[in-house]
């Protein structure tokens, strides 16, 4: 059906291995071919973009160049990777910035500065996040057809977080405040998708380690709202959101005297379950809250 260059990024090779694994399973089932981008490197998220503007552009630019040479669209399931790539493409429309980044890439590749790269003018590669790749009408129909074990009775809230909708002029979400693309996908799996107002609220993001107090407070706010609308679980496509909500629940409970036990699922994990794979196949045992 589709063939993508696949950019797992550090998360899907590390803390979000279950995202990677479930993605590969469901993609195979849907006939979507994933070819891991050869020699990929850091997307430049957080560490780079909070220290040096050019570095934050040069890192994704290197990956974008590799991807462009494959001639295939690039799938970056981690929304941080996705966001960095899209933002970089946008920023490099500025000729001065593009020139500066080209110089860095040339230097890194050992080419004299100013000499054109081997493939100087590839058309810009199309960068897709998970929701862009699997949320279109065609894929939704395929997903619906692949469901063998509908998730009847499961009440889910879809949590988009910030980066899959912002900045809107770069990400082009279906709606900035009330996106629907994930809701539609999860509904195709037979689950009951609940409307809730915190779809795009902040999870604390990369304050995960520096300001645990903030992350705990924000996590509690999100989980309380999910609970109060009657959700059994929270679905996300972002490894950062997942980690902040999943790994911190115990601490949230201890700090605020709560008793949350809400599983946080990746979109692809629920797809896998609905497609008939067993839970252990999906590495659900990697979650801290189950």
């Amino acid at each position: 059906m589709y063939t993508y260059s696949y950019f797992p990024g550090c998360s899907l090779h590390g803390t979000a291995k279950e995202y990677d694994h479930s993605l590969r399973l469901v993609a195979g089932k849907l006939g979507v071919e994933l070819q891991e981008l050869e020699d990929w490197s850091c997307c430049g998220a957080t560490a780079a973009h909070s220290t040096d503007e050019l570095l934050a552009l040069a890192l994704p630019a290197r990956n974008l160049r590799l991807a462009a040479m494959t001639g295939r669209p690039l799938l970056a399931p981690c929304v941080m990777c996705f966001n960095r790539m899209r933002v970089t493409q946008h920023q490099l429309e500025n000729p001065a910035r593009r020139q500066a980044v080209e110089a860095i890439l040339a230097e890194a590749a050992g080419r004299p500065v100013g000499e054109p790269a081997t493939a100087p003018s590839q058309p810009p590669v199309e960068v897709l996040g998970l929701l862009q790749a699997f949320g279109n009408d065609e894929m939704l129909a395929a997903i619906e057809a692949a469901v063998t074990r509908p998730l009847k009775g499961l009440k889910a809230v879809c949590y988009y977080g910030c980066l899959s909708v912002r900045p809107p002029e770069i990400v082009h979400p279906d709606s900035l405040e009330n996106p629907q693309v994930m809701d539609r996908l999860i509904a195709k799996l037979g689950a009951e998708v609940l409307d809730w107002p915190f779809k795009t609220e902040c999870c604390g993001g990369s304050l995960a380690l520096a300001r645990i107090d903030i992350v705990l407070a924000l996590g509690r706010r999100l989980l309380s709202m999910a609970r109060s609308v009657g959700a059994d679980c929270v679905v996300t496509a972002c490894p950062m959101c997942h980690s902040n909500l999943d790994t911190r629940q115990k601490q949230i409970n201890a700090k605020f005297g709560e008793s949350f036990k809400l599983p946080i699922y990746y979109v692809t994990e629920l797809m896998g379950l609905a497609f008939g794979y067993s839970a252990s196949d999906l590495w659900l045992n990697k979650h801290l809250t189950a």
Partner: protein
Amino acid sequence: MARIGVFVCRCGSNIGATVDVKKVVEALGQTPDVVFATDYMFMCSEPGQTQIQAAIRDHNLDRVVVAACSPTMHFRTFSSAIQRAGLNPYMLEMANIREQCSWVHPDKAVGTPKATDIVRMAAAKTRWFEPLYPHEIGVTRRALVIGGGVAGIQAALDIANAGVPVVLVERSPSIGGRMAQLDKTFPTLDCSGCILTPRMTEVSQHPNITLRTWSEVATVRGFVGNFEVDILQKPRYIDESKCTGCGECLTRCPWKGFPLEFDEGLGTRSAVYRPFPQAVPNKPVIDPETCMALKSIAEDADRRPDPLTGAAPKRKPKCGLCQKTCPREAVDFFQQPKITTEKFGAVVLANGFRLFDPTVYGEYGYGRYPDVITSIQMERLMNAAGPTGGEIRRPSDGKHPRSVVFLACVGSRDEHVGRPYCSKICCMYTAKHAIMLKEHDPHVQTYVFYMDVRAGGKGYDEFVRRAQEEYGACYIRGRVSKIYPDGDHLVVMGEDTLMGMPVQVEADMVVLATGVQPQADAGDMARKLGISYDGYGFINESHPKLNPVESNTAGIFVAGMTIGPKDIPESVSQASAAAAKVLGLLSQPTMLGEAMISAVSQARCTGCFTCEQVCPYNAVERVTLRDGRQVAQINEGLCKGCGVCATACPGKVINLRGFSDQALLAQMNALFTLPEVVAVD
């Protein structure tokens, strides 16, 4: 020999600082035919004008050059001055040494020689001047007022009371406009209906006013004093001449529950409806979108004739209860749109405004959460004739709200939504709502998120203070970032920029103070009338300070929100001002037209009509001479003197009066050749 007088104005330091006027006067004194040259501090002042008039007499001048500002600014001033001294008013040339010279140059080194050139050119031009005489145009003593809101009502009444017939065109079923929807008016808390509805009745009963509701202006032709307007009467499906407004049909219509536009969707109506009880005219309208009878007729009309018999399809409505009920047999399902053409001498455009649609602010949840409403909806909730009978009940569950949050500047002062301007009325109506809510229910706590409180006006700031101090409205300076439901209330998250911290307010109801924007079809209307409008769609005044109710097309006046955001007193003032301008225009049976317009030398015209194609004002007419030749003729009422035809005419047989080829060439010669008498330093 011409006898030219040159008068150089210093305009304080406007000209004097960058042009050495003495040197200009000196140089002009050496120019052929200039018999008198002088300078003065303010030529446009009374002593300045007297000086010109004295010089005309003393030196027997027959042409005058005033070197000062642009002709748009003061041509009329000086032309009437020389006319009073006995000269033809068109024997004047303005040499613009201010806007086109002193203002744009840094010092006298550049300014003085350029000013001298400009004035010499003007003097050379005047040598070819001939006296011009404006023609007279007949004036139709009738006025058209477009829009039946408070501005249109005021303008129509003022004009009609002076004895001039008026046609008032309103596109909705009733006059009254936005003001009719309001409950109270700031800052006096007058009941809006109580002060407006008597005026509405007066309009409908005035012998000089013809009221045309449910009608629209389709096309406008003609020119000042002589407009010809096609007015489209939409089918009401009720014969206005028969209907007494008894309302019998309203009670019988089985097609109910459609959102009532007048109640901003909070109330409902049937397919046959009257927008509000005090509607003028108090006659219902049948809505073809929701009436079963009209829908079935429309479906029948789509069917082809019977292929065997060729008979027309049956046209029998499927409902028709109202028709059977009506004691006057006024219901007519087959009424057709009707266009009538009428003549007017002047037009007042008062087509009002539209409120900002807050759904673009997704974070406020308007349209998603029923208890997030707009201020105009709040007006309807407060109004005794509104959907809740004047009780403040929130839309979701009909409960009385205890905590109400107001958001100011929704669609105002925000470049992101293309509305960087202030809507001017929202601060005031929000304070009014805060006061009125407390009057309705003393247990209500109100909060107002605002950017700045802009309460300029008589008694306005005092009013806002009252809301805060006597009525306990809690004003929070900052924007709201998100509104979401939590249980049966809403949570409003925002920032208190005075405290420098985020705030969260629990609300039973949120009211969005939506801003003012032009009507969706404001541009179409302006183009129909041939008047200009700004980037938003608000009409441009002919001069924002000195001609605030005139458009830049003669005979078309404007009033109210169509020019820009304003409150009721301001709209009414503008309407009265526009009425005064209309009455001034219509006070004489004829008016003087432009003298500096094109004229065709018909003896030499070959009838190619290139001029007809290029004229932007449709002023070229075709006439057949006695010898059978078809030639061009300029309609003196329509011609604006732009000169495009004179330039385009291949035979050079069109002359733009006051701008003859000889005059323009003389002007050029004066610039590019040395003066015949060279000044010696």
